[in-house]
């Protein structure tokens, strides 16, 4: 196309040159033809040329101008071509720069710059641009990562502080929540929280309060002494310890893949205001990033202050509990004291009750008994009115006297014996004879009781006595009359005995007679029990008397007879009025069940309160031979 264009240009300029030459020729002809000279001559056209030979020159003008135009155009075309080449080159460069920038825009920072002359200004600035962009991008990447890490940390801390806020007042739970969160959030393999504790002895030690997948080889128990091992060092230095070169026997991580040594261990002290509360230990298969370490350190800080708060809370609540217990104890003690007082009061009242009772008894004794008190040697200490009345003394007369004055001379040895016994703590009880002021003898029923104090010493003897003189006199009288009576009684008894004997023999005689009678004879008592059954009766009934005696007489009759026969009914029934003194015929029933008609005659006898009935029975059946 550009070619065509250049030809067009040469053509155009050649044509324009030819045309200009023609115009010049025509003008020249015109001018010359109109000239006076020519006009005046009136010559032909040829004449003109002859007249003006210069016209020949004018006639070649179109060719000349055409050639000039052609070459001029050619020169132009050459310049244009050159110019166009230059333009093309420029355009090419712009395209490359454009592509490059486009690439940069799309983020392909690694594209090489295809410009040979890097020294050229554009190249250089492009290089600078590229470097700038690369740097920018790296920075941006870095910022993004940092931003992410920052977000991770902030989010983590926010969640963590939520956990701390919601923590109960229980160190185990709190520790577990802390380690659980740390291990999960940081995607660590295992971890534990050691809290500092103090023994009663004052020794400090670390106690593994909570752990996730923890398996310490070296420390089977969960306590570590202050300053011992890495945990101890971490606490001692109050510095984070980060280990990537983990000793083989330090810790293993147990996972689904078995046991393995961790690649990194991180220990962070739990400290508030430089005070150590414990250590967090984390173990991982991955290395810890600095921001992770920083995160753990931050959480450790807030954990420590929460732990310290919880510790204080626990202490406070313990204190509170203690105070409560104390208060409870006090109210318990108050109740106990009150009960003690009640017991004392009840005891006192009971004692008073018995004291009143005692007083009553003592008053009664004073009224009823002869009472005195004396010392162990017999010296009187006190006496009551009854005493004075019985012995017929005035009080003044016996004050300070000895018991002896109430004894008959020959009774004195008895007194000494009694006093000796009393001194040994024995009581005395018995009937004694005493002498009153007028020298009469009196009889007393006496009890002497030693009164013993708490030390077991006898303080005095208490004497209670009853005047039984009358009784004694009466008894003596009685004894005498009893003796008389005895003789009389003996006589009477003998007489009665004799009578009994007689009665017995009469009875036997009678029974013998009855026994021997031909009539059957039975005797019953009031109740109808058979008392006597003679041989004739045995024959009649066929019973042996042993079978009948002691039984009720109704066994000797049939039931029918007992119901229907008036005589038999009244005879066998206790308390019925019986038919006495009249002969009556009635059937008896013998041992074999046969009924035999017989004649009865019933007689009644009374000895004292004892009624008895005797029936005489004759067989009316005529025996046929």
């Amino acid at each position, binding site marked *: 196309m550009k070619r065509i264009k250049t030809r067009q240009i040469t053509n155009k300029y050649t044509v324009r040159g030819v045309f200009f030459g023609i115009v010049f020729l025509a003008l020249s002809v015109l001018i010359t033809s109109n000239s006076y000279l020519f006009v005046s001559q009136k010559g032909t056209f040829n004449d003109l040329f002859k007249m003006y030979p210069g016209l020949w020159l004018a006639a070649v003008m179109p060719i000349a101008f055409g050639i000039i135009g052609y070459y001029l155009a050619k020169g132009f075309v050459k310049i244009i071509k050159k110019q166009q080449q230059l333009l093309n080159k420029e355009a090419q460069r712009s395209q490359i720069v454009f592509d490059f920038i486009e690439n940069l825009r799309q983020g392909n920072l690694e594209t090489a710059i295809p410009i040979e002359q890097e020294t050229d200004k554009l190249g250089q600035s492009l290089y600078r641009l590229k470097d700038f962009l690369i740097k920018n991008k790296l920075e941006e990447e870095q910022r993004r990562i940092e931003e992410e890490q920052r977000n991770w940390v902030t989010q983590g801390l926010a969640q963590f502080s939520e956990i701390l806020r919601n923590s109960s007042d229980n160190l185990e739970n709190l520790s577990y929540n802390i380690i659980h969160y740390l291990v999960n959030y940081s995607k660590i393999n295992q971890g534990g929280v050691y809290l500092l504790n103090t023994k009663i002895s004052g020794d400090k030690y670390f106690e593994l309060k909570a752990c996730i997948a923890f398996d310490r080889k070296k420390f089977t128990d969960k306590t570590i002494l202050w300053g011992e091992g890495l945990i101890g060092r971490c606490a001692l230095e109050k510095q984070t310890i980060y280990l990537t070169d983990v000793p083989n026997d330090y810790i293993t991580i147990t996972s689904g893949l078995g046991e393995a040594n961790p690649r990194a261990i991180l220990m962070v002290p739990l400290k508030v205001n430089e005070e150590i509360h414990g250590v967090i230990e984390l173990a991982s298969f991955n290395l810890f990033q600095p921001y992770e370490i920083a995160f753990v350190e931050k959480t450790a800080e807030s954990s420590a202050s929460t732990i310290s708060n919880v510790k204080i809370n626990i202490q406070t609540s313990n204190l509170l509990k203690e105070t409560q217990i104390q208060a409870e104890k006090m109210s318990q003690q108050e109740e*106990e004291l*009150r*009960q*003690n007082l*009640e*017991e004392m*009061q*009840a*005891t006192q*009242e*009971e*004692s008073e*009750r*018995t004291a009143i009772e005692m007083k009553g008894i003592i008053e009664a004794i004073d009224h009823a008994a002869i009472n005195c008190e004396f010392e162990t040697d017999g010296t009187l200490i006190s006496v009551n009115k009854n005493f004075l009345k019985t012995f017929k003394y005035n009080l003044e007369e016996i004050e300070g006297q000895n018991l002896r004055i109430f004894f008959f001379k020959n009774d004195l040895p008895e007194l000494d014996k009694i006093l000796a016994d009393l001194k040994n703590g024995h009581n005395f*009880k018995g009937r004694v004879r005493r002498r009153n002021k007028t020298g009469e003898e009196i009889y007393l029923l006496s009890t002497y009781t030693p009164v013993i104090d708490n030390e077991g010493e006898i303080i005095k003897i208490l004497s209670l006595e009853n005047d039984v003189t009358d009784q004694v006199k009466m008894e003596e009288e009685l004894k005498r009359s009893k003796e008389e009576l005895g003789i009389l009684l003996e006589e009477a008894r003998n007489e009665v005995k004799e009578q009994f004997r007689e009665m017995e023999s009469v009875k036997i005689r009678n029974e013998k007679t009855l026994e021997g009678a031909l009539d059957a004879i039975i005797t019953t008592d009031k109740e109808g029990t058979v008392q006597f059954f003679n041989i004739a009766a045995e024959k009649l009934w066929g019973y042996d008397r042993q079978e009948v005696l002691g039984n009720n007489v109704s066994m000797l009759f049939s039931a029918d007879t007992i119901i229907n026969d008036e005589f038999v009914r009244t005879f066998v029934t206790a308390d019925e009025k019986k038919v006495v003194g009249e002969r009556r015929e009635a059937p008896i029933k013998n041992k074999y069940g046969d009924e035999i008609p017989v004649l009865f005659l019933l007689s009644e006898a009374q000895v004292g309160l004892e009624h008895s009935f005797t029936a005489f029975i004759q067989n009316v059946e005529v025996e046929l031979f």
Partner: protein
Amino acid sequence: MTYKEYLLELKKYSPYDFSEYSDNSIQRRLQKVLDEYKMTLEELRERTINDNLFVEQLVNDITVNTTDFFRDADIWLEYVETVLNKLSARQQIKIWHAGSSTGKEVYSNLILLDELGILKKTQVFATDINQQVLKEATQGTYRYSNNIKSIETYIKILEANKDNSSIKSINLEKHFNINIANDQLKVNNKYLSLPIFKKHDLVQGAIPFEEKFDIIFCRNVLIYFNTSLQTRILKIFHDHLNTSGVLILGNHEGLTGFFKTRFNRLGSFFVKSNSFHFKY
């Protein structure tokens, strides 16, 4: 409503009869309860009728459970010499603590039986009306600070009477587990299972065991009863004692009514006599 009327209501609506308790004492205890619960007798009656648990609490509140290890130390000396020594030849010894409270009296006794080597053949029953104190008794755990003194007092008295007593001293550690930090004094475990603790109300008469006893302790219980109730309780004891069995009452308690003649005195104790006749 008077407190006496209240006691009759209590008797009507609950198994408990305090109507024959000693007037003054029961009145003071009831007053204390009223003060504590801020109630009138009428309100107390309402609660009593409608609330069984409250009644149990009331029994706990009313009863006086004062007791001690080796309470009245002298008595225990005398007890060892005049009662236990005589029984030591027996095949078997049966003892009843009536109104045993928190069991200190029971364990005091067990310790002495142990010291004399006759623990094995002894059977010990202990009763109280108050469920709460019985529970404490079965646990045998007491406050060290409150009890150590009375035990030490007894030990001192024992040691002072070395020459004429069968038990010369008592080793604290042998009979008690002591934890001073917890203020705890626990009787040796071997004693815990020995006594049979049972809830029993003396007023109700019927005894929850068939046995007759060689020794009955009923110390500082009768002081809370009026005379007629005392006499009734004494009859129960008399009925449940073997001939020559010993009744041990509190220091200020004595026999009432006809029981004065059915027991003989043996020092501070009462021995059931086999004679029912008044001895002149």
